[in-house]
């Protein structure tokens, strides 16, 4: 069951690579949040109940509901156009994300470590790299933020792979989530909206040598 959920997460990456509208991105974030909720429940069987509840609460409230809702709010408030505006055609994106996934599978098959659950490793790495890819190839600042949140989802999957032995690390990951999201979204994106009516990365290109 865990494997099915993780593969669904990997498939959502392919879908996001060809998504055109910002709302599709948000729906995928919600979808990934629910998947992570399920994976957490199925994987972390050996940690204390309170800690498990805390982690699951974070995935469902924070990842699946609060952050997408807040991004939605920002999009509406700042009147951001609905197009994602990629630099590359969707077809190329699809190929590249597929390539990322395939190469992480090849990479993981070269690892001979019995302690490692390879599905987790493959899905986590391909999510992280897809997030980086999205940041590099999308024009709007808001899509950069979405790319960053996808990276965090990938990191969360990776932390679940060691979660039973070291629940502290999963908690740290949650801290990272909340810290970065609050810092990036809450404080600064609101400010960017105040100062810039059309938050496009092109407006933030003045600092150079």
């Amino acid at each position, binding site marked *: 069951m865990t494997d099915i959920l993780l593969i669904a997460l990997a498939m959502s990456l392919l879908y996001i690579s060809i998504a055109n509208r910002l709302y599709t991105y948000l729906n995928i974030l919600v979808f990934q949040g629910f998947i992570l909720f399920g994976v957490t429940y199925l994987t972390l069987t050996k940690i204390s109940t309170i800690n498990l509840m805390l982690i699951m609460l974070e995935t469902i409230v924070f990842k699946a509901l609060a952050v997408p809702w807040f991004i939605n709010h920002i999009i509406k408030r700042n009147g951001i156009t609905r197009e994602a505006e990629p630099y590359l055609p969707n077809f190329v994106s699809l190929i590249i994300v597929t390539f990322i996934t395939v190469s992480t599978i090849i990479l993981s098959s070269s*690892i001979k*470590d019995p*302690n*490692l659950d390879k599905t987790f490793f493959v899905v986590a790495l391909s999510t*992280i790299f897809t997030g980086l890819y999205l940041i590099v190839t999308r024009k709007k*600042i808001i899509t*950069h933020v979405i790319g*960053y949140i996808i*990276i*965090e989802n990938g*990191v969360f999957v*990776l*932390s679940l*792979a*060691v979660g039973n*032995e*070291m629940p*502290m*690390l999963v908690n*740290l*990951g949650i*801290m*990272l989530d909340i*810290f*970065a999201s609050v*810092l*990036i979204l809450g*404080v*600064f994106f609101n*400010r*960017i909206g105040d*100062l*810039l009516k059309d938050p496009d990365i092109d*407006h*933030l*290109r*003045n*600092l150079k*040598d």
Partner: protein
Amino acid sequence: MIGIFLAGAFAISLGLFFNRNKLVNYALLFVFSALLVVFSIYEYNHINVIELEFFKPDSIGVLLLFALTIVSIPVIIHGERYIETHNVDETPKSRAVFFGAMVALISACAIVLISGHIAVTWIFIEITTLSASALIYHHRNLRALEGVWKYVFICAISITFVYIGILFISLSLKDAGIDDMSFDSLYANADKLNPFWLKLAFLFIFTGFTAKIGLVPMYTAGIDAKDKAPAPAGALLSSILMNAGFVTIYRIYAVLSHTSLQHWANTVMIIAALLSIFVATVYMTRIKNIKRMFAYSSIEHMGLVILGLSAGGIGVYAAILHIFLHTLIKPTLFLQFNQVYWVYRSKSIYDVGNYFKYNKVGAILMLLAFISATAMPPSGLFISEFLIFQSLFEAHFIVILLVVLLLLTMIIWGFGKNIFKLLFTPPLTIDETKIPHISGWESLSQYALLGLSVYLAYNPPVVFVTLIQDAVKLVQ
């Protein structure tokens, strides 16, 4: 004591944040400075004693903690001068945010220096990002916003990288059958760790911390940050924050140096260091913004430090000496830049000139600071750079040595060209009636810092040498 320091720093930071009264502000900053001094002396007397389970002041931590204390006090004083005298649009609120964030940044860096656990280090590095971003955004305009946005975004990604590295370390621990992630346990069990995961962990942690220490690939955010932050904050960003990054890289490298991966790690670090020096050279030979030039000079010095560290032998000693002296010298340049800005109201090299005419004491200091920062004798950095070159020679990295020497010559040329333009060439247009009188006392602390760097390099006290030698033992 760490508990007291943490609680005290937190209380003072909050107090500064909510207080609007000037005298209370002074008092709180004075208390904080005193707390810093007491804290560093206490940690020196309790070296290698574990406190509160996660904190262990080792030699390198204590050494850089002293540097932090020495630098922080003049920076706080100049911060007050910055807010008070020459900035008309400062409000009690902006002062409160500025000093609250500054105290948080200094304390977080101090805790990183003496933390003995990688997860604790990571948490406090997050706090440095948070407080640094408040400092960078001090002027609340579009440019500052751009700087802070880039800084926050890149630091968020870098911190995620470090987190991934920590996860990989935990995977490598599984083989050894331990679950204690303190640095002590990592040193002790270094040879039992799974080398594959350790390699990946080092790559990710090193890449992540390059954002803090200022190396290729993630140095970019730091440059914009130091450019847009007020100069006293820039002084902190280019000294103690870089040290915080260095200490963590040093400790992780120390773990690898006990394994067969040391050679591989050296290669990775040499590549990053060489690229950093190269990037610094490229920008410094054509740069027109004085503050950014200082920021790139820091990149160059960090490249040299990492080069010394990876050359091994005497290079490790030289690297630690170099970073200590750099901590004293670079804030001098940034603090002095404030006075330059008061005279010309511009950062561009095209608008400045003839500084000797307008501010003699400051101009002499600028000249001395330039000599110090480019490591010409009698600069303290000359000793450490010389030792780094010696270690490169002894490690048979002749080609690397030649390349670095060539690049450094170009850096001195670029740096010197701009500084001499600032000092001697008359500016094109300047309204001399608007230039404020700048008291020589404003430069006193900078002279003291430069003097200290020369003294420590040419006549090092026994305590200082012993601390560095102890710190070197971590690696070899």
